C-alpha cells in the first residue's frame, strides 16, 4: 500500500503541477487487488516513458540526417532557377533528390507516429487506472471542468494523412460509419430532455450501449445533482471526433465556411447551432463560429473560437 501511495504521489505531484487539472487525484483507497494492478501499470508506464524518450531521440537523429538532402534540394532549386532552361541533367538529379527526400520524410513520419502512439498508450494506461479507482463520480467545480474540457480539446491526436491516404471517419468533419457504436468513455453530443422539459444537445460521456434496444446510457459531463444519467435512443447521440484534421494536408476534412454546425458554446457544456465563419488555419487552431442568437441585431453572435473537438455536423432541423 505504501509503495503504491508513494508511486501515485509522484505522478500526482507531477500532474498537478504540470497538467493543471488534467488528471485528478483519486480520493478512494485502493483495495489489494487494485494495488498489484497499480504497481504493474506503474512499471509499464515507466517502461513506456523510457521507450518514448528513446523514440524522441531517434526522431531527431532522422531529422538531422534528412537535413542534408533538403539543403541539397534547396541548392539545386536555386541553381535551376538561375538557368534559363531546365536541362534533362537537372531533371534527373531533381528526381533522385526528391525520391531520397520522400524516403526520409516517410521514415521521419513513421518514427513520429510511433512516438505519438506510445504517448497514447501511456495515456490509456493512466485513464484505465483512473477509471478503476474512480467509481464515485467526481463533483468538479465549474472552472476545473472547463479547464478539463480545454485540455481534452488540445490533446486530441492530430491526423496527418500520408500522400494518397484519406482521413478516417471521426477525423474532423468526416462522419462516423453508419454502423459505428460508441464505446464506454467516449465523449458524445446527446440530445436530451432537461428537467424543464426543454431539449438540449449536451456534452456527455457514454456509459453503456444496449444493442437490443439500440439505446445508449450516457452521463452528463456536468455532474450536478439531477443531471446525471440519461437513457436515449441511438439517433439522439452523435460521437465527437477522435482525431483532429490537419488543414495543411486534409483541408476536405474540415467544415467549410458558411456551413451549419453544432458547436459547444464556450464556458458551457451545451451544443448550439452555429455557422462556421472560418475553419482552422493550422493544426492547433480552432474554428471561428457565429452562434445563432436572437439577442443580436443580425441574429448571430460575434465570432467565437471553438476547438475542433467540439464542432459537429448539425442534423437538427428545428430551431432551438
Amino acid at each position, binding site marked *: 500500500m505504501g509503495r503504491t501511495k508513494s508511486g501515485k504521489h509522484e505522478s500526482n505531484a507531477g500532474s498537478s503541477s504540470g497538467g493543471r487539472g488534467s488528471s485528478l487525484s483519486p480520493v478512494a483507497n485502493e483495495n489489494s487487488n487494485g494495488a498489484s494492478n497499480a504497481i504493474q501499470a506503474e512499471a509499464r508506464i515507466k517502461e513506456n516513458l523510457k521507450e518514448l524518450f528513446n523514440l*524522441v*531521440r531517434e526522431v531527431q537523429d532522422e531529422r538531422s540526417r534528412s537535413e542534408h538532402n533538403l539543403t541539397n534540394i*534547396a541548392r539545386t532549386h536555386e541553381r535551376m532557377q538561375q538557368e534559363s532552361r531546365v536541362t534533362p541533367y537537372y*531533371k534527373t538529379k531533381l528526381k533522385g533528390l526528391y525520391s531520397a527526400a520522400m524516403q526520409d520524410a516517410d521514415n521521419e513520419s513513421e518514427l*513520429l507516429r510511433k512516438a505519438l502512439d506510445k504517448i497514447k498508450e501511456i*495515456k490509456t494506461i493512466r485513464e484505465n487506472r483512473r477509471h478503476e479507482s474512480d467509481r464515485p463520480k467526481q463533483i468538479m467545480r465549474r472552472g476545473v471542468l472547463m479547464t478539463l474540457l480545454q485540455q481534452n480539446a488540445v490533446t486530441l491526436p492530430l491526423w*496527418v494523412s*500520408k500522400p494518397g491516404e484519406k482521413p478516417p471517419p471521426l477525423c474532423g468533419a468526416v462522419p462516423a460509419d453508419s454502423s459505428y457504436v460508441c464505446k464506454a468513455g467516449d465523449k458524445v453530443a446527446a440530445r436530451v430532455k432537461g428537467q424543464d422539459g426543454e431539449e438540449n444537445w449536451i456534452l456527455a460521456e457514454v456509459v453503456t450501449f444496449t444493442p437490443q434496444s439500440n439505446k445508449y446510457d450516457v452521463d452528463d459531463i456536468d455532474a450536478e445533482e439531477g443531471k446525471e444519467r440519461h437513457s436515449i435512443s441511438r439517433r439522439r447521440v452523435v460521437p465527437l471526433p477522435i482525431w483532429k484534421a490537419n488543414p495543411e494536408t486534409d483541408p476536405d476534412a474540415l467544415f467549410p465556411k458558411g456551413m451549419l454546425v453544432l458547436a459547444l458554446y464556450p464556458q458551457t457544456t451545451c451544443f448550439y447551432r452555429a455557422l462556421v465563419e472560418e475553419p482552422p488555419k493550422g*493544426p492547433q487552431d480552432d474554428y471561428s463560429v457565429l452562434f445563432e442568437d436572437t439577442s443580436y441585431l443580425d441574429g448571430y453572435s460575434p465570432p467565437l473560437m471553438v476547438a475542433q473537438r467540439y464542432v459537429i455536423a448539425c442534423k437538427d432541423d428545428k430551431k432551438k
Partner: protein
Amino acid sequence: MKGKGKAPQQDKDCPLQFPDLTSCDHTKECPKYTLVLSRSSEDTIGIEELDSLQADLEILLASVGKRHHLLESENQVLVNWQDKKDKKPVAGKVQPEPTPGKRGKGASAATDERPSKKFKESSGKATQPSSRAPSPAPRSKSKNPQVKDGEMVSSPAELPRVVKNECVDRFWQAMEAYSRPITDEDVKFLEEQLRKHDDEDAGYFKIPPLGRHYREVWAEEDLMEEMAEGAKVNDRKRHTNHSNHTNQTGNGTIEASSLLKKAENSMEESPFGPLTQRLVSALLEENLITPMDDVMTDLGENAEEAPAISPRMLAKQLNIGNPATLERRIQRELEEQGILETEDEVEDDPNDEILQELKRAQSELKPLLQWKVRHLKDLLKKAREQQARQQLWKKFDECDAKLHEEYRKLGLARQKKKTNLKRERESVKKVLKEWWAIYQTLDDSYNE
C-alpha cells in the same frame, strides 16, 4: 529591375514550383521537444510533460506530412513533364487504372434501385439485412417504363394510384442525371478536360509580343476609311454618270499601308539592325576627307557614287545572310563580352498599364486554374472509383437475385412439407456467404 549582373531568369515553360522544403525549426517551434532532447541518454520523460510533448510532436508530424505531399506532387509534375517531352501519350496523370473497361451503359433498373437504397441508408437506420426487406417494394414502384406501362394497362381504373406513381417517376427521372452510373464517356470527358488544361491553359500566361502601336493602326484605318469614302463618292458619281472608271476599292488597303509606310520611312531603308550599323560605323574610319582634299573637284561625282549603292545591294554583294540573325548574333556576342548590358525585356516597364493589367489578370487566373485542376483530378479519381464500384454492384445484384431464388426454393420445399430441408438450407447458406462477402467489399469500398 535592371541588375548589374545576370538576373535570375526562369524558364517560362517550366511547370515546377520549387516549393520551400525546409523542415520546421524545432528549437523555435517545439520547446518541449527541444527540452527533452537536451537531456542525457540516462534520463527519461515525466508524465506531466506528455501533453506538451504530444503537441510538439504533432507539429513536427504536420510539417513532415506537408513536405511529403509537396514532394509527391512535384515529383508527379516532373515525371509527367518528362513524359510529355518524350511525346508519349499520357492520359492525364500517372494513375493506376482500376476501370475494367467492359462496362457499357448501366441498366436503368440498377440505377433506380441504387438511389432508393442509398436513400434508405442515409436516413440513419441500421443498415442490416432488415433494411433490404423494404427495398424490393420501392424498387418495383420506381422501376421505370416497363412496370409503369404494365400497371397502367392492368389497372386503368385506379387513376389516383397511377398519378402518384407519375410524380415519383418524374422525380427519379430528374435525379437520373445525377445518379446514373459513371460511364467511360464521363471518364474520358474528365481526362479530356485535364488534357485541355495542360495544353491550352498555359497559353493564357504567355505575354504576347508588343504589336503595332495603335497610332499606326488607327492611322492606317483612318486612311482606309477615307479612301473607302472617296471610292463610294466616286462610285455614286460613276453610277450617275455611267462612266467606265476602273474600280479602285480593291487596292485600297494595299495603297493605304504603302502610303503610310512611305510617309514614315522617308529615310533610306537599311536591312541591317541598329547594332550592326553602329558597330560598322564604329569600325569604319572616317578618312574620306583626306583623299577627297586632293581630288575634290575631279571626283566630285565619284564621291557621291560611293554611298550610292543601297545597303540592300551591299548586303547581297557581301553575301551576308539574314540581317536579323546577324543582329542577334552581334547582340549576344556583345552581351557575353560584357560590353553590352542585357537589356531588360519590355515586360518590366511599370508604365505599361496594359501589361500590368494583363499580369494582374494572369495572377488572378492562376489560383482559379489550380483550383480547377485540383477538383478535376479529384473528380477523376472518384469517377474511376465509382466505376469499379459499379462492377461490384452488378455482381451484388446478381448475387441478390440468386439469394432470393434460393430462399424461394426453401420456402417451396417447406410448403411441400419436405422433411429433409438440408440441401436447400445448404444452398441458401452458400449463397448467403457469397452475398455477405460482396456486401462487405462494397461497404469497405465506400469507407475507404
